[in-house]
């Protein structure tokens, strides 16, 4: 077929972010034990409460078993063969961006995330994380004027220990699951956000995660606290170089929203996915959860998941506060031999709580794409409502899509609505669009964006355009 040849040409389009930065790093030796954890904590000059937190988590982790219920196919991870701390060597204390190693700045420049004063993005404050450490955070002074704290979590441990002690592990306890326990024991860096009472954060906040070394895991930890009547929109982007080994990325993200506060958390995940034969790529095993603690609080997750060899995560909302709102908008795209098992948990605890789930799974190549979600109505969730819509799109005839919606209701006076559909991009549809003058690649992306529109509408503007382009790029050559 004519198109198949065309497809092969385009599929060679390499992963744009696959380069490695040649930089001297400080790595500790491979392996995991109490001494390693003490060493990480010591390197980060942490207070005792945090070391205790880590050690307790490690004890729990040792007693836990790696879960296998998702039936994802991957070779067993050797946790003693991972480096748990890797940081680019830099001067001891950096007082301004000018002192950051130019190689690092150049790396983020190449990724489209300029950090320097002259070039930095204008409406977004960025926290750039390279392997285990945060390199730089822009717009700190401007944000501080509004009382907003935006810094690496290591810095927050030093400067805002009270907040860390109060909130860390309250949304995702160390014992929550195997990977959360591991993260709690060894987490290296990540972002910390605090929005004080009554403040609408004046600009979007964003973290950019870059894995550079091939043999170290990345275990970042993000904590966002929105005080009463405050609001924030937070974006997260991720890329990694191409290695033929798998790298474990086990992050934990915790969000807390108090009365009338709202947090919007958007992710565009484009970790290296491995090659066409499924060699290499990131294992993205992440626990993300938000707690709507306050009345009328709102947490909204939107995610565009296109990378990683395996994506395994369920950004969730605990709806405690009366009339609190949880949202989950997701596009998960898998190609070649990628696997994704993603979805959300909406736990309705308080009365009159509301949740919306819109999930779009696109599977191409030989990939596997599953939506797995839980909607639970607790005994006190009177008058609560959920609406879920899970759609799958298949491209080609080798890909698979599954939907596993779990529904548990202990409250008769609540409503749960679930809709699901599956469709396939067919050669006939593509031919039809082509006979109307629309080019092959454009036809595919037109159909995919049409399919994802409900989710893209939820993304911050710059992100939506980016996501559209990213999907088009990822799909190039996947239809024949």
């Amino acid at each position: 077929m004519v198109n198949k040849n065309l497809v092969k040409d385009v599929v060679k389009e390499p992963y744009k972010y696959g380069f490695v930065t040649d930089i001297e790093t400080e790595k500790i030796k491979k392996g995991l034990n109490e001494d390693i954890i003490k060493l990480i904590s010591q390197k980060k000059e942490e207070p005792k409460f945090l070391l205790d937190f880590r050690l307790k988590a490690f004890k729990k982790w040792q007693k836990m078993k790696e879960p296998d219920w998702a039936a994802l196919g991957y070779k067993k991870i050797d946790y003693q063969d991972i480096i748990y701390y890797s940081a680019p060597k830099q001067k001891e204390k950096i007082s301004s961006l000018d002192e950051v190693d130019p190689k690092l700045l150049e790396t983020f420049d190449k990724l489209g995330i300029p950090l320097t004063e002259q070039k930095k993005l204008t409406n977004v404050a960025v926290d750039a994380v390279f392997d285990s450490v945060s390199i730089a955070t822009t717009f700190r002074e401007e944000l501080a004027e509004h009382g907003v704290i935006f810094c690496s979590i290591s810095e927050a441990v030093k400067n805002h220990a009270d907040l860390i002690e109060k909130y860390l592990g309250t949304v995702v306890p160390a014992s929550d699951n195997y990977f959360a326990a591991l993260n709690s024991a060894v987490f290296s860096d990540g972002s910390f956000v605090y929005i004080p009472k009554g403040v609408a954060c004046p600009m979007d906040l964003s973290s950019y995660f870059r894995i550079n070394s091939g043999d170290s895991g990345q275990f970042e930890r993000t904590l966002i606290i929105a005080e009463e009547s405050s609001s924030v929109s937070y974006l997260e982007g991720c890329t990694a170089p191409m290695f033929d080994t798998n790298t474990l990325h086990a992050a934990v993200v915790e969000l807390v929203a108090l009365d009338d506060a709202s947090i919007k958390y958007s992710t565009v995940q484009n970790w290296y996915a491995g090659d066409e034969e499924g060699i290499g790529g990131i294992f993205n095993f992440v626990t993300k959860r938000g707690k709507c603690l306050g009345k009328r609080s709102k947490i909204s997750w939107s995610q565009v998941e296109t990378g990683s060899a395996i994506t395994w995560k369920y950004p969730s909302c605990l709806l405690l506060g009366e009339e609190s709102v949880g949202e989950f908008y997701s596009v998960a795209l898998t190609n070649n031999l990628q696997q994704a098992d993603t979805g959300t948990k909406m736990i309705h605890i308080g009365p009159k709580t509301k949740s919306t789930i819109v999930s779009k799974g696109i599977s191409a190549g030989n990939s596997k794409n599953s939506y797995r979600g839980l909607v639970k109505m607790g005994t006190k969730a009177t008058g609560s409502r959920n609406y879920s819509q899970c759609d799958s799109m298949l491209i080609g005839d080798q890909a698979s899509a599954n939907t596993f919606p779990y529904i548990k209701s202990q409250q008769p006076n609540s409503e749960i609505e679930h809709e699901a559909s599956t469709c396939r991009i067919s050669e006939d549809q593509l031919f039809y669009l082509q006979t109307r003058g629309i080019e092959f690649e454009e036809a595919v992306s037109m159909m995919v964006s049409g399919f994802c529109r409900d989710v893209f509408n939820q993304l911050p503007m710059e992100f939506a355009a980016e996501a559209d382009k990213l999907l088009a790029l990822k799909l190039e050559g996947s239809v024949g």
Partner: protein
Amino acid sequence: MKESDPILEVENLSASTDNLPILKGVSLTVYPGEIHAIMGRNGCGKSTLSKIIAGHPSYNITNGDIKFLGENINSLEPEERSQSGIFLGFQYPIEIPGVSNLEFLRVSTNARRKFLNKEELDTFDFEELVKEKLEIVKMDHAFLSRSVNQGFSGGEKKRNEILQMALLEPKIAILDETDSGLDIDALRIVASGIKKISNAQTGIILITHYQRLLDEIKPNYVHVMSDGQIIKTGESDLALELEKKGYEWTDNFIKET
């Protein structure tokens, strides 16, 4: 003697899919202003011929040429053929969920306009243009905000095809069983639409089983296809004769040759 150059020349065209020969030496020439009808049993290759002219990737041309305005288009992509003025009206128009009909029509129209070095239309200007064209097929504006062909009735889908033809203003339109599945009223609307759009510069190929469309749009030539070949060509009365005698009559014709 023809005064102008042909729009479409199909010369001794043979084609196959999965090594199975479907067309076995088809020749057909269409001049500006001409209407050709192609008739024949199901499976005789008439739909395949239309798809191959439009550039369907599932068929391989094993012999012969397709020329459009004098240029060989054998290796052009379907979108290039469309942009240069070849239109295929589908027998079963395809549903494209999630893609708005209006946006689809606009992108499509602009692709053709770009080829013609005409200014591309923004949403506002396009709305104006499409409003005018909707009249031709008596379609309601509400169809524009729906997904392409999704949930359309058979007749609505066919009218949407003619709307596309009206917007694209092709040099040649191949209409594959546009009349099938239409009631009398819808058939009249579609037929009058086709007549309004076509002019002395355009060529039309009507693929049909029935005389009733040809009552509305009188063809200059009627071709009968059988087993991948055009076995008989005549004027419009050939269709009438065929209607009377049935395709069995053409079976005899094959034996004669």
